[in-house]
């Protein structure tokens, strides 16, 4: 009976050293040591993160920021595709180092993860068939498609408890449900909806009514307690704004010559 017990002791030791390793290590050092920055980004939400049909790689506004961060660290960038619901589990389960996926900063989330300073701002808006939705008062009577694991879902449930919510894995699923008539409206952050509608062949059938029901600030999500990594991201974001690089990234996806022209109302450091 000595053999199994030794094995058990060994396993305990290994587990303990792993755990203490997790507690002591500083993620910024780990990233530099491993030479890889693991970033979770959307793969189905143009222009924030989507699979480029030519390169077959994830690209978009969030990805451009990820590339800048990796370049500053002098490490390789590894992108992990995510949907909205997997963002926090990916961080808490130590599957990625940073989440750059249109991640709204909230107090509740801030208890689970660190946030950088905001690098984007938006408001929660809706897409509906033309003529079905003109004011927020109508929301309570509608069947509305939301994305699982988003603040949109929580905000809508709190503000319009009588609305029927159907949650999908990602915005395009919700939009397909809207197109098929399963829901009457879908909700997401305005810029994300604009990006979505820009890629729809029959976009003239739909509209984004000109009201929003919340104002959201978007930041990078980081593992809880990783102060140095958070500081690094904050500094980098400020420098990207100062050098004009942040504006270049914005213009590449929302500038006047793009499919989704949108005036830049928020600059890094505004809040």
């Amino acid at each position, binding site marked *: 009976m000595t053999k199994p017990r030794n094995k058990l002791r060994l396993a305990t030791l290994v587990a303990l050293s792993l755990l203490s390793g997790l507690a002591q290590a500083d993620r910024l050092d780990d990233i530099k040591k491993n030479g890889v920055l693991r970033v979770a980004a959307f*793969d*189905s939400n143009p222009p924030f993160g989507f699979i480029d*049909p030519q390169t077959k790689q994830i690209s978009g506004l969030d990805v451009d920021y990820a590339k800048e961060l990796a370049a500053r660290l002098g490490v390789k960038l590894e992108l992990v595709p995510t949907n909205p619901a997997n963002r926090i589990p990916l961080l*808490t*389960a130590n*599957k990625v180092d940073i989440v750059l996926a249109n991640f709204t900063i909230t107090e509740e989330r801030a208890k689970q993860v660190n946030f950088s300073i905001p690098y984007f701002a938006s408001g929660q808006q809706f897409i509906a068939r033309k003529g079905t939705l003109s004011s927020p008062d109508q929301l309570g009577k509608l069947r509305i498609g939301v994305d699982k694991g988003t603040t949109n879902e929580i905000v809508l449930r709190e503000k319009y408890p009588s609305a029927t919510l159907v949650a999908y894995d990602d915005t*395009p699923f919700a939009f*397909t449900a809207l197109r098929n008539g399963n829901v009457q409206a879908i909700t997401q952050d305005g810029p994300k909806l604009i990006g979505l509608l820009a*890629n729809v062949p029959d976009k003239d059938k739909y509209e984004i009514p000109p009201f929003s029901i919340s104002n959201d600030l978007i930041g990078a999500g980081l593992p809880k307690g990783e102060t140095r990594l958070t500081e690094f991201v904050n500094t980098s974001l400020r420098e990207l704004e100062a050098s004009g690089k942040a504006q270049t990234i914005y213009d590449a996806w929302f500038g006047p010559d793009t499919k989704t022209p949108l005036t830049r109302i928020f600059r890094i450091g505004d809040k």
Partner: protein
Amino acid sequence: MDFTVVADNFSYFMLGAWPDGPLGGAALTLALSVVSALASGVLGLVFGIALAMTRGAAHNVLLLGLGFFRAIPVIMLIFWTYFLLPILFGIDVPGTGTVVVALSLIGGSYLAHSVHAGILSLPPGQWQAAAALGLRRGQALRLVILPQALPIMVPSFINQWVALVKDTSLAYVIGVGELSFVATQVSNREMVYPTEIFLFVALVYFIFCSTLELCANRVARRFGTGAG
């Protein structure tokens, strides 16, 4: 219907971003299936033999453990392995590894019962004859029982593997870029072709699974155990 969307993205469906990125699509589905099939086969054999050779408390503990994996939905086990093992025990299993572990544990648990049933299906006289020849229990199993029982089990192994190929599609919930996942990515980008894309994806799985099933029937006929 307009299947140009399938033609345009064909290499992404088949190989993912490879060679410029990790292997994905149907190729990854195949790879995940083969590795999980082998692992589930080994687990099934080991636990099935253990079921046949154990009595009492050990037997019951084994039954309970196997029962757990037969009762939990695949999606739940994938979530547990991927998100909760790292939090609870600090064990980090990458996405592809998670799928292989979850599928082979579940597949192995089902197979263990088939293996057990296969061993039990042999008349007890076989064991007695082996014992009379002076073979120990382990030797009897290896030399007398298994060579007869294994062919009987072949159809249930292949049926389990067909189930396993289909279940690789659940890797989609944790973002592993197998066929179903890359298909939803493309469907999400193109927006208006879900019918065409999912019909095509179904066809690919159909080809994989029915090829396996054809093999099963052929093997079953060869061993005279009826069509699978």
